[in-house]
């Protein structure tokens, strides 16, 4: 069974540019989560999809972040325009029901 995959693994962009991160969950998992770890701090929740609907987006830091989940399959997280403080590692996770969350390898975002 394939795990959660994320693309790209690493992205380096300049301040003010746009970046789109992609997450492919485990097939059949209705729940998809985004988390991030910035500046060596703790890992924080961003948002939660159930199928294609946003269940909880209370962790989204501001309106520069836009997440979508097309047809309840893969998800994208767009940052526009990127700021220096957005640098960090962005993780995607998926689960079936209220059970173990399977994490992807993460996307390391560097904003210069």
């Amino acid at each position, binding site marked *: 069974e394939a795990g959660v995959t994320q693309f790209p693994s690493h992205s380096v962009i300049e301040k003010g540019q746009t970046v789109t991160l992609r997450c492919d969950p485990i097939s059949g998992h209705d*729940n998809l*989560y985004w988390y991030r770890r910035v500046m060596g701090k*703790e*890992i*924080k*929740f961003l948002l939660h999809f159930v199928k294609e609907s946003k269940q909880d987006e209370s962790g989204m830091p501001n309106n520069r972040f836009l997440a979508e989940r097309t047809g309840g399959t893969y998800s994208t997280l767009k940052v526009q325009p990127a700021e220096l403080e957005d640098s960090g590692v962005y*993780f995607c996770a998926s689960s079936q029901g*209220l059970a*173990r*969350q399977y994490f992807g390898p993460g996307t390391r975002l560097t904003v210069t």
Partner: protein
Amino acid sequence: GIQVEQSPPDLILQEGANSTLRCNFSDSVNNLQWFHQNPWGQLINLFYIPSGTKQNGRLSATTVATERYSLLYISSSQTTDSGVYFCAVAANSGYSTLTFGKGTMLLVSP
């Protein structure tokens, strides 16, 4: 929201030593996971353990849900065990999202 506290914040060991990492949480949970973040930043799932005891090689974990804590044991530590260990929980009363502790930074020296 639920609070998660990990201790110690930092730990330095000689190769071959044993260690215990602790995670305290402030509310009842339906999910508890331990992770190891490796030097490349990847999160490696170690245990899914909302209650009970599990073992995987040199690692084992115990969660006492009624007393709201979990322990991660590392035996015969190796340099490859170095990195940050995170505990994450999902509260019974909330959504299924995980709240992470601040982590324990482990350094195992040869």
